[in-house]
């Protein structure tokens, strides 16, 4: 007699095994658990909603193909493995496009969408919040690539510094140092922004 499988309580490792053994709902649970972490990380790296959607889909399709082919290495954890695949796809994209992932200008497409939403809702508070989000996104994008990567992987993908170090092929101390520099630079940019806002309000 089979023991009922509680998908929601199973570990990532168990879900992978369930999927390989024919339980389709296991992959749905893995997606539910990790979609925000993976998608937000991709989106903040590429800064384009539609491109982020494509890379997100490609990453999980690769994940599924690898699981089905039996090539999944069970030594590592599931999320860092998915993040490695997504990270490589982002790098491939920028290599193909021959452009730097450091984009300091605002995301035109998103801003247009935000603009329409703001007018539909006519909410001043929402406009202010959207502007704050846009400012923060620009600040993250102004960080040097290696600092931005660590910040995104640590905060949004929830990876440990050990996992980030392995993924980016640096020592743990280097990853920690990059995070500190990222925060330091972010703080400087926020101070400058606050100063400029206070001058505008005078």
């Amino acid at each position, binding site marked *: 007699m089979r023991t009922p499988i509680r998908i929601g309580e199973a570990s990532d490792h168990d879900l992978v095994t369930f999927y390989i053994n024919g339980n389709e709902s296991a992959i749905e649970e893995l997606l539910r658990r990790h979609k925000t972490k993976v998608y937000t990380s991709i*989106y903040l790296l590429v800064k384009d909603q539609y491109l982020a*959607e494509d890379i997100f889909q490609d990453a999980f399709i690769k994940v599924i193909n690898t699981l089905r082919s039996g090539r999944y290495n069970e030594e590592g954890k599931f999320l860092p493995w998915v993040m490695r695949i997504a990270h490589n796809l982002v790098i491939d994209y920028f290599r193909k496009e021959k452009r730097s992932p450091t984009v300091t200008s605002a995301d035109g497409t998103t801003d247009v969408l935000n603009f329409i939403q703001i007018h539909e809702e006519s909410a001043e508070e929402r406009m202010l919040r959207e502007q704050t989000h846009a400012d923060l996104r620009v600040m993250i994008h102004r960080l040097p690539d290696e600092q931005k990567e660590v910040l995104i992987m640590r905060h949004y993908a929830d990876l440990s510094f050990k996992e980030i170090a392995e993924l980016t092929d640096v020592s743990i101390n280097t990853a920690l140092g990059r995070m500190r520099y990222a*925060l330091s630079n972010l703080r400087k940019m926020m101070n400058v922004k606050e100063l400029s806002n206070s001058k505008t309000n005078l």
Partner: protein
Amino acid sequence: MTKTSTQTNFTEQTITQSTIIVDHQMNEEHFYENIKSRLNELKKDPSDESIAKILKHAQLK
């Protein structure tokens, strides 16, 4: 004599630098705690369409 003085200065300088580094790290950690909620506001989910495409691909025959 001079050597001792230099060593003392070096030790003091090292202690001061270490204190500055520790202060700096604590400031950054404090700053990170303060901005976590702001960073969290940037979290986004993929579209339902993307999820549907992936799940369709994941169907086992």
